[in-house]
C-alpha cells in the first residue's frame, strides 16, 4: 500500500515539476498575483473553465498550484500509511521529510509570488528536486523487491564500497546540476557577464562530473571496477539508463543553449569563430520546439536525479552507511 502511494507521489511530483519547469520557461510565475488564493478565489474553487480554457500562463501557474496541493495531500496520506503499516525508521523519516519539504515548498512558492523575488524562485527551484529525491527514495525503499532483498541480505555495511561512493557522488552531482541549472534559468538580468560566466563554468564542470560518474557507475555495475556488491541486472540496467540519459542530456543542454541564446561562438577564439559557417536560419523565440527543448532539459535532469537516487539505494550508498534500517517491522515480523 505504502509503496503504491509512494509511486503515485513520484508520478504526480514528476508532472508537478514539469509544470514548474514550464512556468519558468514561459516566465508565467506571476500570472497569478495573489497567494494562496487565485485572483481572489479559493485556489480549489477557481472556475475550471477560466483556468483550463484561459490564457496559457494562467493555465500553467494555476495548474502548478493545484498539482502542488495534490502532492501535499498525497504526502500526508503516505505519512499516515507509513506509520500505520509500521514502515522502517528510514522510510518514516523520509515521509516526515517529504511532508516538511512539501509544506516548505508551498510556502516558498507563495513567497516567490508575493515578493516577486528571483532569489526565492531559485530556492524554490532547488527544493523541488530535493522533494522529488525523497519521494523516489521512499518509493524504492517501500518496494517489495527491495525489502525482500534487504531482509535476505540483512546488510548494513560499516563502510562504503566503490559502487556506493560512485552512486552517492552521482546523486549529489545530479542534484547540484539542477541547482546550477536553476541559477541559469532564473537569471537575474542585472548580473553582469562575469557572474554568468562562473555559473556556466560551474554547470559545465558539473555536467562533466555527472558524465564521468555515470560512466564509472556503468563500469562498476558491469564488474569492470572492484565491488563488494552482487552485480545484479537491475543495477546494470539502471546505470546504463542513467548513462544514456546523461548523453541525451548533454545534447539537450547544447540545444537548449542554442535555442535560448544562439551558438556560443563567444567561447571560441575570434579566428575560429569567424570561420564557423553562418546560415540564414534564425532561432524563433518562444517557439514550441524551443520551449520543449529547454523544458525537456530540466525534466531529463530530474529523471537522472531520480534514477541516481534509486542506484544509490541499490548500491548501498549513503543511507546504508549512515546505518538506516530499511526493512519494515511488518516484514521483520513476517
Amino acid at each position: 500500500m505504502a509503496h503504491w502511494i509512494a509511486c503515485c507521489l513520484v508520478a504526480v511530483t514528476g508532472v508537478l515539476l514539469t509544470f514548474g519547469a514550464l512556468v519558468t520557461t514561459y516566465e508565467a510565475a506571476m500570472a497569478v498575483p495573489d497567494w494562496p488564493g487565485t485572483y481572489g478565489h479559493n485556489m480549489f474553487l477557481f472556475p475550471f473553465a477560466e483556468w483550463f480554457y484561459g490564457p496559457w500562463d494562467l493555465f500553467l501557474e494555476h495548474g502548478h498550484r493545484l498539482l502542488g496541493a495534490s502532492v501535499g495531500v498525497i504526502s500526508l496520506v503516505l505519512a499516515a500509511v507509513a506509520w500505520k503499516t509500521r514502515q522502517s525508521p528510514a522510510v518514516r523519516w523520509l515521509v516526515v521529510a517529504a511532508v516538511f519539504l512539501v509544506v516548505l515548498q508551498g510556502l516558498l512558492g507563495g513567497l516567490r509570488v508575493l515578493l516577486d523575488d528571483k532569489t526565492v524562485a531559485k530556492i524554490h527551484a532547488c527544493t523541488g528536486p530535493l522533494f522529488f529525491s525523497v519521494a523516489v527514495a521512499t518509493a524504492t525503499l517501500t518496494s517489495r523487491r527491495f525489502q525482500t532483498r534487504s531482509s535476505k541480505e540483512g546488510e548494513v555495511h560499516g563502510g562504503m564500497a566503490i559502487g556506493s561512493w560512485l552512486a552517492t557522488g552521482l546523486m549529489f552531482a545530479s542534484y547540484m546540476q539542477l541547482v546550477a541549472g536553476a541559477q541559469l534559468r532564473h537569471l537575474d538580468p542585472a548580473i553582469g557577464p562575469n557572474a554568468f560566466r562562473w555559473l556556466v563554468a560551474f554547470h559545465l564542470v558539473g555536467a562533466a562530473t555527472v558524465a564521468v560518474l555515470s560512466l564509472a557507475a556503468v563500469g562498476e555495475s558491469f564488474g569492470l571496477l572492484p565491488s563488494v556488491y552482487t552485480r545484479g541486472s537491475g543495477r546494470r540496467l539502471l546505470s546504463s539508463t542513467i548513462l544514456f540519459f546523461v548523453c541525451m542530456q548533454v545534447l539537450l543542454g547544447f540545444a537548449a543553449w542554442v535555442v535560448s541564446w544562439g551558438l556560443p561562438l563567444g567561447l571560441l577564439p575570434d579566428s575560429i569563430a569567424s570561420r564557423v559557417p553562418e546560415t540564414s536560419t534564425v532561432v524563433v523565440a518562444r517557439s514550441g520546439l524551443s520551449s520543449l527543448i529547454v523544458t525537456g532539459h530540466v525534466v531529463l535532469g530530474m529523471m537522472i536525479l531520480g534514477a541516481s537516487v534509486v542506484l544509490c539505494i541499490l548500491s548501498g550508498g549513503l543511507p546504508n552507511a549512515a546505518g538506516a534500517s530499511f526493512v519494515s517491522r511488518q516484514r521483520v515480523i513476517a
Partner: protein
Amino acid sequence: MNNVIACRSVTSTLVRTKTSNVLAVLCGICIPFLAAGCGQTPAASFRLNLVESSKQRLTSSQEQQVATILTALFGTPDEPLAPPEIGLDGAKLKLAAGPVRSDIVGRKNGLYREHCAHCHGVTGDGMGPTAAFLNPYPRDYRPGVFKFKSTERADKPTHDDLVMVLRNGLAGSSMPSFALLSDAKIEALAEYVKYLSIRGEVELALMRAYFELDDEDQGVLPQSREFLFEEIIDPVSEMWAVADDAVIDVPDMPSGLDMVASIAKGKELFYGNKANCVKCHGVSGLGDGQANDYDDWNKVVFQAHKTVEGAAEQAGKASTWEMSAEERDEYRGELAWLDRFETVLDGNALRPRTIRPRNLRQGVYRGGMRPLDLYYRIHAGINGAPMPAAKGTVPPEEIWDIVNYIRSLPYDFNGTLGADRPMVARDRM
C-alpha cells in the same frame, strides 16, 4: 577489558562515520540555498555609463548628478518616464518595462526583461549576463547607433526598421526572431528600445557637457529646463522624430535590365576603385580583405584600453623625486584615475573584438536578404561599422548592379580555384 576498549573504538568510529555522512547530506542540501543567495533580489536599476564617465574624468558627485537627472527625466526600469517632448508612447513603454507579469486575460508586462535583457542588459548597454558568450556582441543601444535601417547612415532607424529586426531576427547572429509575438508586443519592444537609446544618448550628452562648463559653474551642470531640453534632450529626440521622413528614396531597378550585363557591371564596380568593395570583402568575396578594424562600440573600448595603457606607461616613466608637491598630488590623482578606469573596463566592458567583413559567398546578410535591403546597405553604408556609404560616388543604377553581383556571388564560381571543379561549401568559408 581490551575487548571493551576495542568495541568502544569501533562504535565511536561507526558513530563518527555516520555523523560525517549525515553532515555531508546536510551540507549537500544547504549549499544550493547558499548558492542561491541569501538576500532578496534588489529592484532593477539602470547602470551608469562608467566607461564614458571615467573617460571624461567625472567625479563621483558629478556621476551622482548625472544619475539624478536621468532618473528625474526617464524614471527607473520598473517605472519608466518619457517626457512628452521625446514623443514616446507611455502605454507601450509600460507594457515593455518592469518585471515580468501577466493578468487574468493573459496580457503580459515586462516584455523587455522577458525577451531582451539577458543579452542587451537592463540598461540596454549590451552587457546582459550572456553577452560575453555571443559573437557578435549584443547591441549597446546607448550611443543611439543602429546598423540595419532604411535611412541614411547618420540618421536614426525608423520605427518600422526596429520592428523588422525584431520580427525577422538577424541571420548570422544570436538575435532571434520574435515573429510569434503579437504586433502590439513587438511595437512595445521597439518603443522601449528607442526609450533606452534616447536615455543612453542623453546620458552621454550630459557627461560630455561637463567639458563645456565655465569656471563659474563650479563643475555642476545647470538644472534649468532650458539647458536640459534645448541643449541636451531636443537634439537627440529631434533626430528620432525625423527618422520616419528620412527613408532613403530607392529608385526602381531599371526595367528590362539585362541581368548578365548588370552582374558583369557590378563585378567591375566591386573590384574597381569607384566602389572598391574588394578592399574589405576580399578578392574572393569571402570577407578576407581588411580585417583589423573595429566597429564603433568595440572601438570605444579598444581606445579606452589604449588610453589606460598609454597613461600607465607615462606614469611608469615619471619620477616622483623630481616633482613638486603639487605635481606629486596631480600624479597620485592620475594613478587613482588609471586604477579606477582599469577596474571599470574590467567590469563594465567586454573584450574588444575586430569586425570581420561579410563573407558574401554564404548568402547570409544580417540586415535582410531582399535586394532592397542590400541596396540600403550599399547606398548608406552600415552605421557604426567600417562599411562606407556608396552614396555620392556610385549612382543608383550602378548600386543596383552591385546588388545583382552580390546576389550572384553565392552561386558564382570565382575562377581562382581551378576551372575543373565547382566551388564547394568549404571554399566559401
